[in-house]
C-alpha cells in the first residue's frame, strides 16, 4: 500500500493508494495552516482504518518536500522519515509544486505559485502535459516577490494559493487549485508520472538569524 501526504501548504492532505495502479482507497484534506502537527497523524490513522489496513501493509511512502513554510513542511518530512525507517520501507520525495502542476487538466504550459508568506511566492514553470499526464519543470522552484516574477509568469495560467493571494501583481486569473493534493501525489508516484527525489526539505531560504553584536554598554553615559 502506498501512503502519500503533503504538509507544505495550509492544507494537510493524506491519501492511501494501490502502489501499482495508483487507485485511491482513502483520502482526506483539511485546511488549517496552524495545526499540521495535530492533524497529520490522526488523518493517516483514519485513512488506514478506512481502507481496512494497518501500518504493516504499507510498502512505500510519498511525501511533498516543499517548498513551503518550514514548520509545517517539517511535520510531513519527519513523519515520513520515521515511519519509513521503522517499517523498513522507502520514502519518495516529490517537489510540492510539481504536484500542483500535475493537478491542472489544462493542455497548456502552466505556472505554479504558492504562498511563501512575507509577501513572497514559491513558484515554478511547467511545460504542457505529455501523453501520460506528466509535466516537465522548466524553471524553479524559487522564492520571489510576486511583482519581481510577474513578467516571467505572464501569459501563463497560474495555479496555487499564490495566484489567489497575488492575482493583481501576477495579473493571473485565480484558479480553484489552491493546495497540493495527496491523491494526485499518490497516483503520480504509483504510476511514475511524478519525478521522485530524496525526502529532503526544499527551504529555499536561509534561516533567519539576528547576529548578536558585542555586549551592550550598561554604564550611564
Amino acid at each position, binding site marked *: 500500500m502506498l501512503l502519500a501526504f503533503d504538509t507544505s501548504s495550509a492544507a494537510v492532505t493524506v491519501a492511501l493508494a494501490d502502489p501499482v495502479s495508483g487507485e485511491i482507497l482513502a483520502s482526506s484534506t483539511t485546511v488549517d495552516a496552524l*495545526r499540521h*502537527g*495535530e*492533524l*497529520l*497523524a*490522526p488523518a*493517516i*490513522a483514519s485513512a488506514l482504518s478506512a481502507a481496512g489496513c*494497518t*501500518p504493516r501493509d504499507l510498502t512505500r511512502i510519498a511525501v511533498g518536500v516543499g517548498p513551503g513554510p*518550514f*514548520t509545517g513542511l*517539517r*511535520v510531513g*518530512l*519527519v*513523519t*515520513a*522519515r*520515521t*515511519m519509513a*525507517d*521503522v*517499517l523498513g520501507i522507502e520514502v519518495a520525495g516529490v517537489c510540492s509544486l510539481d504536484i500542483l502542476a500535475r493537478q491542472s487538466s489544462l493542455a497548456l504550459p502552466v505556472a505554479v505559485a504558492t504562498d511563501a508568506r512575507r509577501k513572497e511566492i514559491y513558484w515554478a514553470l511547467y511545460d504542457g502535459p505529455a501523453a501520460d499526464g506528466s509535466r516537465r519543470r522548466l524553471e524553479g522552484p524559487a522564492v520571489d516577490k510576486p511583482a519581481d516574477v510577474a513578467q516571467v509568469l505572464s501569459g501563463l495560467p497560474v495555479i496555487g494559493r499564490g495566484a489567489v493571494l497575488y492575482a493583481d501583481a501576477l495579473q493571473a486569473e485565480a484558479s480553484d487549485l489552491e493546495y497540493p493534493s495527496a491523491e494526485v501525489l499518490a497516483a503520480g508516484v504509483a504510476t511514475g508520472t511524478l519525478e521522485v527525489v530524496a525526502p529532503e*526539505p526544499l*527551504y529555499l531560504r536561509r*534561516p*533567519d*538569524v*539576528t*547576529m*548578536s553584536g558585542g*555586549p551592550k*554598554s*550598561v*554604564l550611564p553615559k
Partner: protein
Amino acid sequence: MNEPLILGIETSCDETGVGIVRGQTLLADAIASSVEEHARFGGVVPEVASRAHLEAMVPTIRRACETAGIKPTDVDAVAVTSGPGLAGALLVGVAAAKGLALSLDKPLYGVNHLAAHVAVDTLEHGDLPKGCVAMLVSGGHSSLLAVEDITDGVQPMGSTIDDAAGEAFDKVARVLGLPFPGGPYIDKAARDGGDRLYVTFPRGLTSQRDLERHRFDFSFSGLKTAVARWVEARRRDGEDVPVNHVAAAFQEAVCDVLTRKAIDACKDRGFEHLLIGGGVAANSRLRAMAEERCSAAGIAVRVPRPGLCTDNGAMVAALGSELVRAGKAPSPLGLPADSSMPITEVLNK
C-alpha cells in the same frame, strides 16, 4: 510482569535526544546537538535548531536502538516532550514520536519537559522521595517545584522573574570574553584560582521586602548587569579584569541565592529531600554548596550525574516509564506541541 520498555524523544531546544529505558534502568541515551551551530550567535537560533532536529531524528533513533540492543518493534510506549520549549523544535519531536507510535501501534505519551528533568533522577537513584522540592536550573528555566508524586503533577513554588540562571551564566561569560554556552567556562575559570569573595555581587530578591512577595522566586537580571557594570568600569579605567575572580564571585552569588531559596522551600513544605536538575546542576560550586548547606539543614540532596542533568531523551523516557508504571492513560494522536505547557500538566491529554 516485565518492566515497560520506553523510548523517549526530546527536541524542546537544541538537543535532539532519544533515550531508551526499561523500568528505571537506562539502556541508551543518544544525543545529537546543534549547539556548535548556535555558538557564534551567542544563543539558540530556533530555525537552525528545528532544521537540525529534522536531520538528526532518524539517525539518533537508530543509534539509541543499537546501543540498547533493541528493535523499535520491542518498544512498549513512546514518550515525547510536548512542551514547554521552542514551538518549531518541539513540533519535530512530537511528529516523529507520532510517526513511531502510529507505525508500531503503541501508546504515545506527550510529557512535560520540566517534569522529565525531575523524573530522570529515577534512573540514577531509583524511586523519587515521597515528597521533595525540585530545583530546575538551566538556560531555559529556573524553578522551584513541590513534587509529591511526579505522575500526578508538580506544584510550582517559584521561578525566575527575568533571566534564567543558565542565561545569566551565558551573558556573564560573554562579558568576560568566555565562550558559549557560558556555564562550564565560568565554572572552570572560578575553579582556576578564582576568589569567591573578591567582589560581593547582589543577591536578587533576597531583601526582606522582596521576600514578602517573591519568597521562592529568582531574579538574575540585576546580577548580570552588576557584573557587566563592574567589568566595564574596570576596563574604562584601563585596569585588568581578573576573569577568574569575577567568575567565582558571580557564581557564588547565583549559587548562594539558589541554595538558600531551595532550602527555604524544603522547610516550608516540610520536605527532607532536594532534587536538583537542569544544565546548571552540573555546576561544581552549586553541587558543593547544596551538599554543605543541605546537610547542615538535615536535607538530603539528589543530583543526577551531569550527563542526565542537561536536556536528553533519557529523561523523557524515564518520565514516560513512571507514567506507564502508574497506569496513566496515553495522549491522543492529535496531541499538540505546546510551547507554553503549564508546569502543573505532566502529561498532555
